[in-house]
C-alpha cells in the first residue's frame, strides 16, 4: 500500500526553482532514502512535507487521501512525523514531558505526569528505543535525544517518519543502532523517509532511493539493484573519481606543538590535557562527534580562548598570551568552522574578503595607505588560482553558494603559503565538486610542506586526508594513530569514549566473528 505519494511538487523562489516537479512514492513498511547534494532541493521538499512551506504546484496524497498542509499541525494530523537535524527539544523538560508536549495526558487542564511517564515508557519499550523517561533532556547524549525525537513522532501516531540527516551527529556505532531502530519501525509497518548525503548509509539501510539534483528527481532506484557509483553519478551528473593523494615526503620539523593543554569554557573543562603535534608536510586529523572539545582546541590554538594550563608552540615559538595577529605573523592560518559568521564578511565583496590579512603589508599597503587596484588584482589572482565561481571580485560573498564561499575562505588562508593551517569542518555543507577541489587544495598544500590540523566530523574526510588521526572524546585525546591503522569501527569506538586498547581488542574480536567491519 502507498503510504505517501507526491506528484509534480514545484516550488519556485525569485531566483531558483528549488523543487521542479518532484514525484515520489513511499510504500508502507519501506525505508525510502532521499539523497542529493547540498542545494539539490531536499530541505525544500522536507519543509513542504511538514507544512513550513507551501508548494506552488503539485499534490500530496497520504494514505490514499489528498492533503494540503498549512502548518506542521496539519502534517502531524495526517500522520507525518519529523525528526529534525537540529533537535527541537526543550532542554529543561524531562524526556516524558518533551514527548507528550502539546498532547499531554491529564484532566481539567492539569498534566498527569505519572500517566505521561508510563505511556512514554511503554512506547519506548515497544520499539526498542531506550530512554531515561524521567530525566531532563539537557545533558543527555545526542543519540538519546534522537530517540526522544522519534518517540515524539510515534506518540503522535505518525505512520510516516521523516529523518533529516540523522547520522550527522552520531558515531558509527550509534548510527548502526539507529539503523536497527529504523528496521524495527519498518517491521512494525511504519514508513521512513531517510534524508542523507552519505551513500554507504543508503546502501546499508534503505529499500529504495530517490536521487535529487538541482531540484529534480534524477533517479528512483531499488537499493538492492544499484551501486554507490550509479547513485553518485545520478547525484552529480558525472563520474566522481575520488582523487588520489599526492606522494608524500617524510614530514619535517614540528610546526604546531600542543602540550598538556586544558581549556575551560563557561566553567566546564572543554579541552582536557591535550598533547599533539603537527609536522611540516603532514595532515593530522581530529575525529570526534561534534561538541567534544574540537572547537575549543582550535580556538585556543588561534588565541581566541585562554589556556588554563599547558603550552602551545607555533613554528617553535611559545605563543602563550599572544593574540591572533601575532600568531598569524608566526605562520598560523585558519579555516574557521562557520564561514558565514567568522570565516567571511558576507556583505563585503571578494576584494575585501580576500585582502583581509594581507592588508597590513606591501604590496596591498604602501606608506600606510591601502592600494585598491592591487587589492582587486590580488582578489582576481586568488579567484583564478582556486577556481572560485563568482561573477567578479566586486560581488558580495554572502550571495555565493556554500561551496564557493568556502573556496573564498580557503583561497584567502592558503594564499599566504604560511606553514600552519587549522582547518575546521572545511567541507561542511558544500557540494561534491567543491569537496573534491578543497580536498585537492589541502593535499597540495601538504605536499608543498604545509602542516594541517584538520578538524572534521566527517569520518571519511579525516580518513582520506590525514596522515595521523587523533580521536577526541569529552575534551581528551583518546589516541593518536597513523591513518593506515585506523578503521571506521576502531575510530567509532574511541569516539564513543572506549579507550584505545579496549577498542583495538573489541574491533579485533568482532572482525574475527566476521562482524561489523564494513
Amino acid at each position, binding site marked *: 500500500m502507498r503510504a505517501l505519494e507526491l506528484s509534480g511538487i514545484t516550488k519556485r523562489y525569485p531566483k531558483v526553482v528549488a523543487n521542479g516537479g518532484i514525484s515520489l512514492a513511499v510504500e508502507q513498511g519501506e525505508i525510502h532514502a532521499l539523497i542529493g547534494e547540498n542545494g539539490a532541493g531536499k530541505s525544500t521538499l522536507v519543509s513542504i512535507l*511538514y507544512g513550513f512551506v507551501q508548494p506552488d504546484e503539485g499534490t500530496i496524497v497520504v494514505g490514499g487521501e489528498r492533503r494540503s498542509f498549512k*502548518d*506542521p*499541525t496539519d502534517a*502531524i494530523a495526517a500522520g507525518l512525523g*519529523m525528526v*529534525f537535524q537540529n533537535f*527541537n*527539544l*526543550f*532542554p*529543561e*523538560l524531562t524526556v516524558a*514531558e518533551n514527548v507528550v*508536549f*502539546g*498532547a*499531554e495526558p*491529564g484532566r481539567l*487542564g*492539569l*498534566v498527569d505526569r505519572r500517566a505521561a511517564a508510563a505511556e512514554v515508557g511503554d512506547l519506548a519499550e515497544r520499539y526498542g528505543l531506550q530512554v531515561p523517561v524521567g530525566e531532563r533532556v539537557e545533558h543527555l547524549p545526542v543519540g538519546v535525544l534522537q530517540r526522544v525525537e522519534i518517540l*515524539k513522532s510515534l506518540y503522535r501516531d505518525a505512520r510516516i517518519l521523516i529523518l533529516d540527516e540523522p547520522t550527522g551527529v552520531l558515531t558509527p556505532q550509534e548510527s548502526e543502532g539507529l539503523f536497527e531502530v529504523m528496521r524495527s519501525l519498518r517491521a512494525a509497518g511504519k514508513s521512513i523517509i531517510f534524508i542523507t548525503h552519505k551513500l554507504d548509509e543508503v546502501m546499508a539501510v534503505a529499500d529504495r532511493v530517490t536521487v535529487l539534483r538541482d531540484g529534480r528527481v534524477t533517479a528512483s532506484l531499488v537499493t538492492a539493484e544499484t551501486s554507490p557509483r550509479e547513485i553518485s553519478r545520478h547525484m552529480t551528473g558525472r563520474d566522481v573519481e575520488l582523487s588520489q593523494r599526492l606522494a608524500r615526503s617524510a614530514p619535517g620539523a614540528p610546526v604546531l606543538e600542543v602540550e598538556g593543554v586544558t581549556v*575551560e569554557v*563557561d*566553567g*566546564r573543562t572543554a579541552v582536557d590535557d591535550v598533547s599533539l603535534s603537527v609536522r611540516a608536510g603532514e595532515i593530522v586529523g581530529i575525529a570526534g562527534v561534534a561538541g567534544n572539545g574540537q572547537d575549543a582546541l582550535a580556538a585556543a590554538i588561534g588565541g581566541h580562548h585562554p589556556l588554563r594550563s599547558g603550552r602551545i608552540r607555533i613554528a617553535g615559538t611559545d605563543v602563550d598570551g599572544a593574540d591572533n595577529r601575532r600568531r598569524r605573523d608566526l605562520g598560523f592560518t585558519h579555516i574557521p568552522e562557520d564561514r558565514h559568521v567568522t570565516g567571511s564578511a558576507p556583505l563585503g565583496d571578494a576584494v575585501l574578503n580576500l585582502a583581509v590579512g594581507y592588508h597590513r603589508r606591501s604590496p596591498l599597503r604602501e606608506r600606510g595607505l591601502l592600494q585598491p587596484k592591487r587589492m582587486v588584482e590580488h582578489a582576481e589572482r586568488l579567484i583564478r588560482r582556486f577556481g572560485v565561481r563568482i561573477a567578479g571580485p566586486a560581488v558580495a560573498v554572502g550571495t555565493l553558494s556554500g561551496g564557493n564561499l568556502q573556496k573564498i575562505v580557503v583561497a584567502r588562508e592558503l594564499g599566504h603559503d604560511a606553514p600552519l593551517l587549522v582547518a575546521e569542518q572545511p567541507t561542511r555543507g558544500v557540494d561534491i565538486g567543491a569537496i573534491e577541489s578543497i580536498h585537492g587544495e589541502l593535499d597540495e598544500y601538504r605536499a608543498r610542506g604545509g602542516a594541517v590540523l584538520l578538524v572534521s566530523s566527517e569520518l571519511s574526510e579525516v580518513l582520506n586526508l590525514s596522515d595521523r588521526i587523533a580521536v577526541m572524546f569529552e575534551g581528551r585525546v583518546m589516541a593518536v594513530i597513523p591513518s593506515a591503522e585506523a578503521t571506521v569501527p576502531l575510530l567509532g569506538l574511541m569516539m564513543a569514549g572506549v579507550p584505545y586498547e579496549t577498542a583495538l581488542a573489541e574491533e579485533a574480536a568482532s572482525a574475527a566473528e566476521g562482524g561489523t567491519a564494513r
Partner: protein
Amino acid sequence: MLEILIAPETFAALVRSLVPLLLLGLGGLICHRVGVFNVSLEGIMLAGAFGGLAGSVLTGSAIAGVAIAIVSGVIVASPLSFGGIVRGADPIVIGISVNLLVVGLTSFLLFAIFGVRGSLQQPGTDGLDAIRLPLLGDVPWLGSMLSSLTVLGYVAILATVAMQLYLSRTRSGLRLRGVGMKPGAAATLGISPARYQTAAVLVSGVLGGLAGAQLSLGNVVLFTENMSAGRGWIVVVAVLLANGRVLPLVGVLALFAYVDAVGIRLQSFGLPVQFADAAPYLVTLIALVAIAALRRRRGGVALVTA
C-alpha cells in the same frame, strides 16, 4: 537601635513593601518564563498607581480604583504585547519608550484632571485597609505581618502559590515554559508561541496594575509623580537573578523589602532620608554582583546573557 532589625514593626513594614514588588515580580516572572524580556514593568506599575488613586478619587470606591488600575496596567502592557510580539518590534525599545511615556503622561493627567502638580492627596479618599484577623492578628511577629496585609496582600500570596502551581502542574503552564525555552520547537508541535507570549505580557499588565494600586491605595492613599521610583527596574533585575523561579524571586524581593523597611525605620534615629532611600538599591546591587560572581565561579552562565 539594633533591635530595629528584628522589631515586629520592621517586619510589618517589610510586608507592606513586599506586596507590590511581589505582584509586579510575578508579572515579570511569567514574561521571563515565556521568553519575553519585559522592561516596561516600571511603567505598568506607575500607571497602575495613578489609575488606582485617580479611580478611587473619581468614583469614591477603592475597589473601582483597583479595577481601573488593572485596566491602566493592561493598556500600558499592550504596546509590548502587540507591538513587540505580534509586530516584531524590539521589546527593549518599546519597554523604555513606554516607561518614559508613562512618567510624562501621569504627570500630565494629574494636572489635566485634578489641576495639581507633584502629588495628589485628597482627604476622605477610599483606600484599601489592612485586614485585621481576629485570632492570628494577636500572634507576635506573624500577627503584625498579617495585619498589614490589604486585600491585595492576600491576592499576592494566592497569586504566588497559583503561579507556582500553574507553571509546574498545568498543561498550559508546561506549554508556556516550552515556548520560553524553545519557541521553534513549540511551533512544530502546533503551539503558537505568539499567543502565549501575548497573553503572558497582558497578565503582567494585570499584576502590575494591582501592584500599582497597592502602592497608591494600600501602603498610602496618595499619588506622587514617579511614585514607582525604580521598583520596576528592581523587579526586572530580581527576575533575572531568580532566573524565573518563584521561590528565589520571593527571596530576592524580600531582601530588598527588608532593607527598605529597616531604612525607613532608621530614619527616626536620624539616618539621612537619602541614605535610607538608597539603601535597598545598594543592597540589591551588592546581591546582584555577589550572585553573578558566585555563578561564574560555579561555572554557570553569566547574568548578562540571561
